[in-house]
């Protein structure tokens, strides 16, 4: 009888780290795969090399959490099979393929915790592909991990708590933040009052950031519409409508984002059932309160199945690990599981408030101009997609992909998929829930043609040395 394979955790952010800790505490030796060179995920991302800044400078108010997670994970390294800088590009029947340094490694696993996190959600606006335009997350990573700013006079555009956080972090770092352009009306922010009793420190911190931004000269515009980014070879200005009239602000960098979207491709490859989630306005893998997916042995933690933020990711990662232990017939802390679920429910209520306070401007997709690029990988304009929908009487997202190439390029729809679904729903006057979702196929991200498989490398090692 061969020994049972170890569980596999994908992602070494807050969810993946807490999951690994819980599995190690129960005596397992999980494989932890992560694309980054160091643990922390996007939120607590570490610099590639030490740049002399301390955690406080890098993570601000979240420094203590970041440091604790980094420390906890470092303490695990002897007891996990850690695979940093590895892209899990294919997944099937208990076998995963990992690309690392041009070599493919095959890993067998029993139990899968997906802690794949999220990326920025965007809708195309004129000029969104000009050099100098970054997603909010990208702008934040440049600052956090590399100590770089995306420009010297920067405007932040979009919606979501990250909009204010990144603007504030840039201002703290000494960058001129010309303005924050919030797509939501000021009235939406009154929803935060409901959030105060749920999470006083979080809400108060957000309010303080907005106040400090203003105090130091950053204009905040609410209810911003018709945003257009101008420039010839790179960003030169942003033009927008707000309140009474139009405005134009000169700038050399733009951070843009409309909240986050879950990274769900591996859940799809694992066979998980999906359903439409109205709060995230996305098709998401189904999970129960413990993190169990529709597939036995596959667990979904953190933002990978619904956006809830880093604190929830820590809870969700640990909770999913406890579920895995229970399903594997191992001792697990039932009281802790109950406490974690209570905490997750609390965060969930806060998310409802945040979504109301920082709403996603889905109506922006109403007037994506025909000449605006919809899919930047395949260079498909909104007009071309509209034409394809009309010519072929399309009603389903994968069919739109098939005939127009939207979502067929390098990003596999991770960037343009949101907008493509919105566009299809509008053109066909259907509910966004009914236009389907882009089916994932391997490789979930590009892989090198020249990649060797690990058995080839081991053959090489057996070659006599000369």
């Amino acid at each position, binding site marked *: 009888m061969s020994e049972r394979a170890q569980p596999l955790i994908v992602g070494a952010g807050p969810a993946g780290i807490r999951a690994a800790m819980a599995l190690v505490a129960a005596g397992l030796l999980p494989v932890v795969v992560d694309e980054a060179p160091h643990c922390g995920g996007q939120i607590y991302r570490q610099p590639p090399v030490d740049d002399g800044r301390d955690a406080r400078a890098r993570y601000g108010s979240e420094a203590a959490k970041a440091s604790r997670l980094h420390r906890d994970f470092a303490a695990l390294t002897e007891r996990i099979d850690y695979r940093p800088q590895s892209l899990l590009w*294919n997944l*099937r029947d208990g*076998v995963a*393929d990992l690309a690392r340094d041009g070599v*493919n490694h*095959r890993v067998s696993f029993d139990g899968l915790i997906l802690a794949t996190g999220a990326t920025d959600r965007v809708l195309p606006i004129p000029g969104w592909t000009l050099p100098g335009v970054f997603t909010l997350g990208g702008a934040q990573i440049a600052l956090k991990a590399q100590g770089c700013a995306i420009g010297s006079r920067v405007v932040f555009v979009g919606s979501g708590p990250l909009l204010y956080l990144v603007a504030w972090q840039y201002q703290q770092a000494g960058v001129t933040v010309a303005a924050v352009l919030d797509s939501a009306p000021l009235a939406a922010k009154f929803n935060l009052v409901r959030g105060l009793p749920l999470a006083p420190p979080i809400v108060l911190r957000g309010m303080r950031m907005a106040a400090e931004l203003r105090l130091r000269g950053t204009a905040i515009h609410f209810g911003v519409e018709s945003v257009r980014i101008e420039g010839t070879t790179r960003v030169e200005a942003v033009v927008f409508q707000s309140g009474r009239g139009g405005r134009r602000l000169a700038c050399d960098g733009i951070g843009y984002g409309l909240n986050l979207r879950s990274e769900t491709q591996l859940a799809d*490859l694992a*066979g998980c059932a999906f359903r439409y989630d109205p709060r995230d306005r996305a098709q998401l893998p189904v999970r129960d309160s413990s993190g169990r997916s529709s597939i036995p042995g596959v667990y979904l933690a953190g933002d990978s199945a619904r956006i809830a933020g880093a604190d929830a990711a820590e809870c969700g990662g640990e909770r999913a690990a406890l579920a895995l232990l229970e399903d594997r017939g191992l001792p697990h802390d039932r009281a802790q599981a109950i406490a974690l679920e209570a905490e997750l429910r609390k965060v969930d209520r806060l998310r409802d408030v945040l979504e109301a306070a920082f709403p996603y401007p889905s109506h922006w997709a109403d007037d994506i101009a025909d000449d605006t690029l919809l899919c930047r990988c395949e260079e498909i304009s909104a007009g071309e997609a509209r034409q394809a929908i009309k*010519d*072929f*009487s399309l009603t*389903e997202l*994968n*069919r739109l992909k*098939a*005939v127009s190439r939207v979502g*067929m*390029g*390098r990003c*596999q729809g991770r960037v343009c998929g949101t907008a493509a679904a919105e566009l299809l729903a509008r053109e066909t006057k259907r509910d966004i829930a009914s236009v389907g979702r882009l089916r994932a*196929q*391997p*490789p979930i991200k*590009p*892989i*090198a*043609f*020249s*990649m060797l*498989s690990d058995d080839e490398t081991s053959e090489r090692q057996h070659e006599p040395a000369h």
Partner: protein
Amino acid sequence: MSRRIDTDVAVIGGGLVGSSAALALRGMGLSVALLDKGFCGAQASGVNYGGVRRQARPPEQLPLSQRAHAIWPRLKALIGSDGEFLRSGHLKLARDEADMASLEAYAISVSSFGLDLELVGHNQLRERFGINGDVVGGSFCPGDGHANPRLVATGFAAAARRAGAEVLENTPVTGIARTSDGFAIEAAGGVTLTARTVINSAGAWADQFARDVGEPVPLIRTYPSMVVTEPLAPFLGVNIGMEGGGIYARQVARGNFIVGGARATALDDPDFSRPGSDGVLGIMRRASGLFAELRHAHAIRFWSGTEGTMPDRNPVIGPSSTTPGLVHAFGFSGAGFQISLGVGEVLAELVRDGRSSTPIDAFAIDRFKTTSHDGDARP
């Protein structure tokens, strides 16, 4: 919600065969209902490799293939899109002298069909086609090429719709019954049809309809594995294949290099499949061996689909041997893309005239009729 449709012809399966037949039938003035269990052109017709080639087909397929060959350049007029059809030529490569000898033998065996095959040696492969890999020669068919299956398959269904065919997607057929003057068909969503003639062009799902009328066929499902790179500078102007299999590749105008040459595996739901890691790693390795340009390329996408394959690699085309008014056309065994355009016309002729002006005897369904008791299929 129920719906009743009376039509001359009901076509089951909106792939390239069914939708090109529907379009041709509309051209003859017959009323047509085109039913698909999912979306038209979403299966093998839309997810195949995109090779538009006559070369390497068995001689019995060539009359039909030549008929299709005449249709391909007229795509724009026919369906309103050229389907990215490119008459690039098809080059079949030989790895060794034995393979080269079989290419030579093939060229002789089909010399009467007018394919204009040209045998090329190793040096010419390098000079004319930029191919430096471990190959000794090849056979070039200048009139062949490649196209975008996603556009062609969907384009025919859209053109049939514009021409007045009733296109019913997401409408699986649940029952067919012979009536005194034709057929009564039941389909999902409360759709009922009466039709004088039925075409079974249901691809990998066609065997169930054949079985229902007492004509079981040894159809199996196969799943190709395709690999696509990011756009690369142009380096391959022809559609290439390899004698004995293993690799086929083309580069599209946008620069993406598309290569296949391994089977994929079915998922739990056998209507869906996904390329396996070993298969695609093997394809990528073989392609890199042939083209140095791929050394730094990235694969951005794989794809697969469901194909209906017959043991003798020939399709079933022609009237049912048990059921008057029923015509079969399926089982194209991974090589249906080019030939389908001719098949559509042939099916329309069979419906209208009861006979085809192109020979199709080799594809009769009764070739699988068994005389022995064990039920073995004999090609």
